[in-house]
């Protein structure tokens, strides 16, 4: 039986730089513990991203794909898209206009973006545990 994971939408902050990357990775690593993770980074709030931020995106994509999953980007501003082009990674990611489109592209039932407090916490852990057991 193949278990389809829910798609997790994670909203990235306004700035993705050296200072913010550790905190973001802390949140993402939990998602990456599962097999076949399906992750959407909602970048609609992102106003600034530097090379450390791009490296973080690549790392997350790489780790997702190692587990037979995928990571997609949504709501990338023209400015952020230009940074991705300059750094030659624009073709690496699937980019969608909205988080909804990105989620639909996985062709699975959607989940709302897990709020920050629910993400790391007890209210979510049971669901995550159930998913883990099912796999």
């Amino acid at each position, binding site marked *: 039986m193949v278990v389809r994971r829910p798609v997790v939408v994670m909203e990235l902050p306004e700035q993705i730089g050296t200072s913010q990357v550790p905190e973001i990775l802390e949140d993402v690593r939990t998602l990456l513990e599962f097999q076949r993770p399906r992750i959407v980074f909602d970048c609609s709030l992102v106003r600034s991203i530097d090379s450390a931020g791009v490296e973080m995106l690549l790392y997350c994509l790489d780790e997702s794909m190692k587990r037979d999953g995928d990571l997609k980007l949504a709501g990338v501003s*023209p400015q952020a898209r230009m940074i991705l*082009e*300059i750094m030659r990674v624009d073709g690496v990611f699937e980019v969608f206009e909205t988080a909804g489109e990105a989620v639909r592209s996985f062709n699975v039932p959607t989940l709302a973006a897990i709020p920050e407090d629910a993400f790391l916490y007890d209210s979510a852990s049971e669901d995550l545990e159930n998913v883990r057991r099912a796999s």
Partner: protein
Amino acid sequence: MVGTGDPADRTGDSCSTGCAGEVLRGGSQLAALEVLGRSLLEAAVENLRMAGIGPISLLTPGSLANQDSGLRDSPGSAVESIRVEEDVVDSIGLKLKDHAKSGIDTTVVIRLGAYIEIDLTEAVQFHREQGQPATRLTDADGPLDIWIADTSHFAAGADVLSSLQSAGQNCYAAPGYINRLAHPRDLRHLAVDALTGRCRLRPRGSEVQPGIWVGEGAQVHRGARVVAPAFIGRTSIIGEDCVIADCSVVENDCEIDYGSTLSDVSLLPNSYVGIGLDLRHSVVSGGTLLSLEHDMTLEISDPGVVRFNKAPHKDVGRQSPAAVEVPGMLFTPAEEAAN
């Protein structure tokens, strides 16, 4: 103001006699820009000399007077530099009176900003035939900041400002190459036109291969690829595995790090491009990138991507005039004449 020939020789109608002029360095920092290793001021002076106009006086507002004009390296430089602390217009008037006393009957007044290659001989002739105190040059896009003025009119005490303003009634449509440099896109056009021979502006450096000019002290790694036409400025460094293509211009004192590609890019003086980047259809100055394709300006704070190459004014010997950080002014249209 740019003058011509021997002011004592008043024979003939040629603009090579009794015709002087002035070049004003405008408030915009475009006057300090370098294109293909030459300052626009230097190019303007050279064009005027080629037209047989001289002597040349450079009126520089106090705020710009400390910037290197780029003229010291010009062979046969005979430009009088005047620092203007007060109103520039008053200084024009004084200079015009001086010219009148010296026997110079016609003066070309240029507010530096656009790059022009115009036959001023015909323009001066037109002006003299019209018998007006001043004539303003125009092109298809409207009036230019170039006037031809009768010095005798101003020696008699006429108001310079109103005379130059009213010159709009007496216009001369100037044929020739004109680039208004109102937008960084124009800067890119000028560089491409110069590299492809559509204007007289020539790169400063040696043509090491057909269509590839390299300035003094520039270093191009043997593993880099430079596709003609292209310009690599003085002391610039092109790293291994870099590609410079599509009429790209790397001005003086730049560095392009390993593996980066420039395609249809003007990299302004003293700029650094990081490792493994792909810049296209852009004008880059320090940490500011203007994408001509997306018509968007990015301020990039990551020094590993793009940044200024050296601290401003560090190299006292041959400091590029645009080595100082140029904030948004670089990407604003030329200011209107400070009237």
